[in-house]
């Protein structure tokens, strides 16, 4: 713990990352309180005040139907964070379990699981998510399903590689010799040694999920109006360049801040926890 604190102090950037992420989380959590126009995340139109540039009552200006951009960005953060949490909460356990099985059980398990993983991995992530979302109705839930479907293979491969290496280590043999079940070996012996790599990747992935989710909604497959979503806001705003530039610049910056924060933390974790393979 002391070592962690020491490294953190020597690494001011990681601290910045932590602060940024906390900023984002608080913005999302306290949106109801902070937002000057909390109703603007819903079915509100105010054509008298549309397309206002940043300033005055509207910190970041208003959009084409008169909604306050700043308030909407705060609520949009909720969607982004929710996505990251849910996707990782589902994809990681699945991926890790499959990776452990493939790496430890070997044989047909290994062959079958890794081939399936390869199939999923050989489609660029965005393409796979797009195809799935193209079939389903674009809602928040379906978006999460689509992104989860393409996410688990990365963890499978990561854990598989580590497990393969650890399989021959002494502590594993010791456990096997004393009659530990296969599940015990996988989850109580090998898994803890994978945790540093998994946690690092998860932190980095939180940002990455937000990236992918915003890319999907940028292409038109995100949540439907009037729910605010960073990617769709940028896409919408891009139509009105350069005159109403604030419509796409501020949501874009919002994405940048969130992902940058997660990346900084992830980098710091990598330094502390001793790198991933």
């Amino acid at each position: 713990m002391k070592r962690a604190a020491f490294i953190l102090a020597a690494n001011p950037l990681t601290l910045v990352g932590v602060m940024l992420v906390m900023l984002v989380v608080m913005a999302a959590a306290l949106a109801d309180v902070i937002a000057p126009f909390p109703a603007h995340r819903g079915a509100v139109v105010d054509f008298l005040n549309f397309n206002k540039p940043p300033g005055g009552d509207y910190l970041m200006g208003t959009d084409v139907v008169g909604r306050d951009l700043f308030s909407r960005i705060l609520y949009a953060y909720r969607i982004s964070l929710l996505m990251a949490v849910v996707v990782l909460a589902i994809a990681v356990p699945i991926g890790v379990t499959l990776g452990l099985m493939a790496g430890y059980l070997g044989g047909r398990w290994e062959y079958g699981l890794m081939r399936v993983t390869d199939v999923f991995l050989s489609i660029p992530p965005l393409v796979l998510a797009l195809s799935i979302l193209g079939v389903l109705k674009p809602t928040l839930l379906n978006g999460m399903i689509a992104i989860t479907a393409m996410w688990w293979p990365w963890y499978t491969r990561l854990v598989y590689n580590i497990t393969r290496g650890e399989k021959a280590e002494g502590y594993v043999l010791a456990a096997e010799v004393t009659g530990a079940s296969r599940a015990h070996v996988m989850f109580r012996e090998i898994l803890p040694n994978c945790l540093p790599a998994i946690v690092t990747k998860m932190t980095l992935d939180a940002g990455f999920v937000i990236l992918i989710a915003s890319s999907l909604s940028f292409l038109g497959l995100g949540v439907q109006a009037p729910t605010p979503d960073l990617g769709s806001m940028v896409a919408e705003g891009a139509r009105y360049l350069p005159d109403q530039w604030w419509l796409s610049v501020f949501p874009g910056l919002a994405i940048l801040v969130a992902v940058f924060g997660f990346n900084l933390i992830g980098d710091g974790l990598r330094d502390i926890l001793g790198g991933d393979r």
Partner: protein
Amino acid sequence: MMTRLLMGSASAAALALMLAAAPAVAQNVLRLDEVPVGELDPALASDYADSLLMFNVYDTLVLPAQGSPGHVPHLATGWEIDGATFTFTLRDDVTFHSGNPMTAEDVVFSIERMKALGMGLSFLLASVDSAEAVDTHTVRITLSAPYTPFIASLVRVPIVDKTTVMANLGTGEGEMGDWGQAYLSANSAGTGAYSVTSHNPQEETVMTLNAAYFGEVAEGAPSEVRLRYGLEPATVRAMVARGEHDISSQWLPPEVMVALAGEGAQFLQESGTGAFYIKLNTQKAPLDDVNCRLALAAAFDYQTAIAITKITDDVAGGVPATGAVPVGMFGANGPDMAMAQDLEAAQAHLANCAYTPSDHTLELSWIAEVAIEERFALLMQQSFATLGFNTEIVRVPWVLFTERVTSPETTPHISQVFVTATTGDPDTLLYPMYHSSTAGTWQSPEYLNDLEVDALLEAGRTAPDEAGREAAYAGLNARLMALAPTIYGFDRNSVFAASTRVSAPALTDPAQAFGLDGMGFSFRLMTVTE
């Protein structure tokens, strides 16, 4: 070190290239854009881009009169009407782009082809029983049933070169194969003022002026026209500002139009033949109850909707609607009867409705390619929420919309569509929307099934004189207002932003307007200056 050298020389080269790359703009080229796809085969054409192509690459027997109702001869020199028989005399000095002379055979072939393929606007020829070539320059068309607006429908029946098409039949069932669809979707076989030099339905169609055209061509008409598909609004805006583009499509958001005007662009306009309709699915609860529909119609914020389309103080994309029939057509209410929001009346109607609003979620769709519709959707969401309705806004690409409306179960509760009279005549506007036999197309997601409406529509198309038609459509107007299958958002005024190097009198001078959507884009009547 190496890298520095590399970077240095690379940037020097790049700079040199950039300075050298200044493409010369070809003289007298007109550049405009529309939503893809551009369908070149006239028998398959139905959308706006298709119309632009059709009106310039092909000719029809008649053209709408400019600045007044009625029709004037074009490929035909005149015609005689005898009951259900129409006899047309054709010009003898017209040749196709291929060089073949235009004869009655081609006219007959074009009609038969359109009917056989049964797509696009072929329904216009549904009442045609037979067409025969009496001699090389006379055609007799016999109708199976009286159809008063028949002459009007001919503006949508372009004449194709029979010889060329027959020489290029593709594979298909029967001896006519595919009737030359594959060929005509990629090549032109018309008589028009412009012939197609290259055609990519997703990207661009290039047309060149036909030097041997028989009709009127303005001095200074563009020698080349480039119609591009699927340009983003930001792109169009920048290109017009830089002089790389001449006429925008009508789908540019109002802000972008305003920005262009601020930089000196002019506005071209086309109006009078259509409206913006908010179509209610009369077969889906709670909208199968007329009182709920009347409530929605009264709750719609008509004024704000028009304000959304406003570009300048004089120019807006919409003009107040007065009823089911656009102002200027048979049976329309006077301009003093503009529709307005009346929330009290809405509540009163709602009280009579058998359903409770909060029990139902209304699915409200907007066409993905028409960005402004999202704003109307959001406006409606707010207005209808005051009545207690929940709405779910859905963005649907055009292609998928036309597919969804083919059954009442998959049709959204509320859809937004811009509809125009394909021939300028009210029959082609109202019949496809409200007759019980034409339900389930993009024009008719209402699935209306009302005997009185059917009868009035029939009367409108068979009444032999104008007074009769006026009476029929006035009755129709009243009936539709009572049934409220549609919310009549506003009468539509199509606005295009254009650079000042283009002069298009048919789109700026009401005395020269065609009264038919798209025909104002007859490039031969435009002038392009440097």
